[in-house]
């Protein structure tokens, strides 16, 4: 197996140019929204709004201004599938369409997916959506085809500020730690890494953030939904046992009543 590969996205140097979005769309031949007719969302400079089946990269524009507009800052973040080490989508996919590649990335095989949409409900980051052209669930593949050819993913290649950095995860984590230390030394003490090994076994696409995860639309404590399975089955079994016993008792009671009063009626 090749070394685990991924993205380190340093949001402090993102300039919101959306070159990553364009490069992703172009390389992966993803269709334009609304047939290419521009529809303004009214949400800052963000008109694609979210990650979904046809937007595998999404640049978030977060405006933080004081009420009098005298102080303010922009938070910019190029979001993408996190390629979780413990991937909820991969776990729940009933067809085997979602696989882990030799690069430790998570890929949906479009020729296998039958569009059940369970992965959409399982993803803690709301990354996956249906591509209406293929009728299948889709998301970032971390340019699996390019990786197999020894190329850098299209978004990282296009990023002009190296906000999106691609490479072996081990090396990226060292680079990220050094960058956080640098920012702290410069006085930006809010800088931290989102997606270390404590989060779902580690996110293979992780971020340097300077505000709470929720500010960026990220969950503070993403969970694998499968932790619910054990208790759910257990409570279901308990409910079935109670229902079964009640049914048995009701039928048996009636039978005993009938035995006591032979004329009461025949068997149910």
């Amino acid at each position, binding site marked *: 197996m090749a070394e685990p590969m991924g993205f380190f996205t340093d949001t402090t140097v993102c300039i919101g140019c959306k070159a990553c979005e364009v490069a992703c769309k172009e390389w992966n031949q993803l269709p334009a929204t609304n047939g290419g007719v521009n529809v303004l969302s009214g949400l800052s400079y963000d008109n694609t709004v979210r990650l979904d089946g046809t937007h595998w990269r999404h640049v978030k524009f977060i405006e933080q201004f004081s009420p009098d507009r005298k102080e303010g800052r922009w938070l910019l973040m190029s979001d993408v599938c996190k390629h979780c080490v413990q991937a909820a989508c991969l*776990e729940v996919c*009933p*067809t085997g369409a979602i696989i882990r590649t030799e690069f430790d990335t998570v890929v949906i095989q479009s020729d296998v997916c*039958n569009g059940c949409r369970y992965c959409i*409900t399982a993803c803690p980051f709301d990354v996956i959506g249906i591509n209406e052209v293929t009728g299948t669930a889709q998301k970032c593949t971390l340019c699996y085809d390019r990786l197999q050819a020894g190329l850098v993913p299209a978004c990282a290649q296009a990023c002009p500020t190296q906000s999106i950095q691609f490479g072996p995860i081990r090396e990226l984590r060292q680079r990220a730690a050094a960058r956080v230390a640098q920012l702290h030394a410069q006085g930006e003490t809010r800088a931290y890494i989102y997606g270390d090994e404590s989060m779902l076994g580690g996110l293979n696409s992780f971020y340097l953030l300077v505000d709470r995860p929720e500010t960026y639309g990220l969950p503070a404590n993403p969970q694998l939904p499968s932790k619910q399975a054990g208790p759910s089955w257990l409570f279901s079994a308990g409910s*079935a046992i109670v229902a079964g016993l009640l049914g048995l008792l009701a039928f048996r009671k*009636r039978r005993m009543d009938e035995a006591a009063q032979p004329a009461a009626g025949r*068997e149910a």
Partner: protein
Amino acid sequence: MLLERTNLFHWETLVYLEMFIAGVAAGAYGTAALLEWLGRGRSPLARTAHLLAFPLMLIAAFLLIIDLQRPERFWHMTLQSKTLLPMFKPWSPMSLGSLIILLFSAVAFISFVDAVIDRGALALGGWRQGRTLHGSALGRLWAVIGGLLAFGTASYSGVLLSVSNIPGWGQSTLIGALYVATAMVTGMAALLLLQALSGRVAPTDLVTLAQANTWLIVWWLVVLVLFVATLGGGAVFFLSGAALVALIGAVVLGGIVPLILWFGPARTGRAGAAAFAVLVLLGGLLVRYAVVMGPQQHG
């Protein structure tokens, strides 16, 4: 904290209808299994359940298939599309559920054929009227297997909703328990309705069934209350809008009114029993609607 979702997955009418219909099939078959264990595997009530469960499962499977974005690939749920080896991930409720549905449908089919044979409409060698599976020692074993698969069919879709990151669903581990109780209560109600409409059953037998159903209604209401009470912050998804109306409707129409009827006309007449059953079925459908649609109305 669960993330606010923007990607819609549209598990809507087809899904809650499928859950309702499969639940009725599982509940009816579960009732037949109980009767089998009480030595009444060939009773008219058990036979009605055998005749009902398989056709309902066919409808449920059809609904599931047409709800897929790529229905022609439905078989990918059970066979690996590239190798044709079995596709089975027991830790995935949908994968496990696909297998359970397949097996339950197969078991229900045998019971369906057995019921047809019992009516003298068919004979297959030694498998003929008077020598049927149900009502025999093997029938008891069959009822154990079928009963367990009916439980799986009734519960897996609820577990599936809990095993998600959708706010509301992902905050409860009692949806499966609620679904099992709903399946039993609606399955029994469907049998009661068919018995009442057929006119072939003695009124006292209807009372037996209605009484069993009444006890289960109480259990169903208990689980429903527990489900809502343990939702915490997720309650907002079920206690607002159409989901709230549906839940109130379910409790009143499917729970309270039938219990009131039980002490009145349902105890004595066929029409009362039929009304009782229809209300319970309606209540079950409303619960399925509320559970499935509640969180999605906040998307």
